[in-house]
């Protein structure tokens, strides 16, 4: 039981940046813009958050800065893919390169530590929040570990990430904005002929993307770790993208997919060096590959064809 809880706790923590990045991707792709630059945005905002948090000692300012960085990235992405009708994938790839170069370059120039920022402490970091009565309930069987162990003690960003899921679902299916967002990703002409600006809507979507992924980046450097270090996003943006496709661009399945990835990663940490029944010792690397292998098997076995929003990846052009 304790083992399971501990794996689940790790799952929640590992999933948090994935959930934020995945929902971020959901907004932009629902609006018809493929965002392979999530990776770079995560990295860039992790950097921005750590830099400002360490300079000001205030993690909230850090969070804002992280979001600010990804907003700038989104603006470039928007300019390239909305205004100039450029290739969204190249734009995303360019942003990933830009983040990986610029963060270290600026970090080295400012802090002289090879791109790493100084360790954050005190008010410059996010700490776990004890939910009410977590201490009192800890001893209660079953409920104790679940409430005090699993649910309590995460940082505010984790709670926000999980809240963002129902919120996104609500926005998508229940609001005017959501309706238009879904429409612009499926058939921008329908929106245009109904008298709305495709450009404005797509920029709005990109802004939301930036806010979410900025929170994800800030999580990496100010909540999960306590400093920025080079390439610290280490592929999470790509995993989030994979989760998004896996989830067929829907919020709750996206949560599920991210939790699944998180769970498999947590399992992997746990199973390293453990002798499996019947099989015996398994090489570390096999365990580490397991999440990815399972993902492929699930994808091939159960998920089937993923159909992207129809207009995603295509710049909107009125004239042929």
């Amino acid at each position, binding site marked *: 039981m304790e083992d399971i809880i501990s794996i689940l706790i*790790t799952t929640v923590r590992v999933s948090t940046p994935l959930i934020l990045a995945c929902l971020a991707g959901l907004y932009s792709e629902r609006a018809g813009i493929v965002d392979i630059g999530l990776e770079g945005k995560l990295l860039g905002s992790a950097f921005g958050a750590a830099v400002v948090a360490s300079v000001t000692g205030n993690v909230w300012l850090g969070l804002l800065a992280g979001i600010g960085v990804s907003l700038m990235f989104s603006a470039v992405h928007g300019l390239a893919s909305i205004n100039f009708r450029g290739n969204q994938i190249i734009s995303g790839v360019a942003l990933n390169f830009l983040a990986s170069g610029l963060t270290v370059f600026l970090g080295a120039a400012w802090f002289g*530590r*090879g791109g790493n920022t100084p360790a954050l402490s005190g008010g410059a970091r996010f700490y776990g929040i004890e939910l009410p009565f977590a201490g009192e309930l800890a001893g209660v069987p079953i409920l104790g570990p679940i409430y005090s162990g699993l649910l309590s003690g995460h940082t505010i960003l984790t709670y926000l990430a999980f809240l963002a899921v129902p919120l996104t679902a609500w926005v998508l299916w229940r609001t005017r904005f959501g309706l238009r967002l879904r429409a612009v990703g499926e058939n921008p002409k329908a929106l245009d002929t109904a008298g709305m600006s495709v450009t404005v809507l797509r920029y709005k979507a990109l802004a939301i993307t930036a806010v979410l992924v900025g929170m994800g980046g800030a999580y990496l450097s100010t909540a999960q770790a306590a400093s920025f270090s080079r390439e610290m996003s280490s592929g999470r943006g790509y995993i989030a993208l994979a989760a998004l496709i896996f989830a067929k661009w829907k919020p709750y399945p996206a949560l599920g997919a991210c939790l699944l990835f998180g769970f498999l990663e947590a399992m992997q940490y746990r199973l390293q060096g453990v002798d499996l029944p019947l099989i015996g010792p398994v090489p570390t690397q096999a365990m580490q590959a397991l999440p990815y292998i399972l993902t492929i098997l699930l994808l091939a076995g159960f998920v089937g064809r993923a159909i992207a929003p129809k207009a995603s990846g295509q710049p909107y052009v009125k004239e042929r």
Partner: protein
Amino acid sequence: DPALVYDGGGKFDASFNEAAYNGAELFKTETGQDYQDLEITGDAQREQAIRQFAARGNNPIVLPGFSWETALRAVAPDFPDTSFLIIDTVVDDIENVRSVVFKEHEGSYLVGALAAMATESGTIGFIPAFDFSLLQAFGCGYKQGAAYVNPDIEVIETAIGTGFDAFNNPGGGTEVARSQIDRGADVIYHAAGGAGVGVLQAAADAGVLGIGVDSNQNHLHPGQVLTSMLKRVDVAVYNAFEDFANDEWTNDVQVLGLAEDGVGAAFDDNNADLITDEMRATVDDITAKIISGEIVVHDYREDESCPV
């Protein structure tokens, strides 16, 4: 000028390369003599970097890391008047090369013993960046040292990633450390460069003890880092620069273990409260025994296996 080319992790990896950098900086501040350094982006640049420094007359050229071996072998014979230092591997068949290797397993043995004494749960952790023989040598020494103190000790070992990029994944380091802590580990030793920062952070946050590596990392979280396994790359670099400046350069193989003060456990104000007199005494005893040969620490790299 002397030259220093860092290995893959880059100058500020908070451990190995940074130690080399520190040695060079110390030399610079003490002597006022400048030096040149460079970070590479890929394996193909290794030979190129050495060759370019040599061609420009930089001397001596310091290459921290065994990955330099092949490139060094290709270049050194072309520049017989240039002196080279390679660290972590032995190139003894070329005239103008000095080799320095460390007995990381001996230093790790000491911190393993300390971990076994400090633990209350009887479970300690080891976190390498990834499964890789050099890092296994750290882990294997650690386990031997821990077992020496307490044969029943449980050592959990979890790698962060699968390749060199794992050195840059502090988030992964944090998560792995936390998962070890959840499993009861209360002293955790990392051999993960930059990712190790995350390990020490997680340990400090959870109120358990971390153990640093390569450089003295005790100051990162005073009172929360039990000790650091020192690997005096800085000394090797400093010595090389100094020997060359004083015309005392030797092309030899230096094996730096406990006896040579090339490795060791770090004790300073930051961890003074953590180390009891008894622990200190045990460490001194073990050190003496290793130096005298009474204790032989098995080096994983000899046969790619660990006795414990």
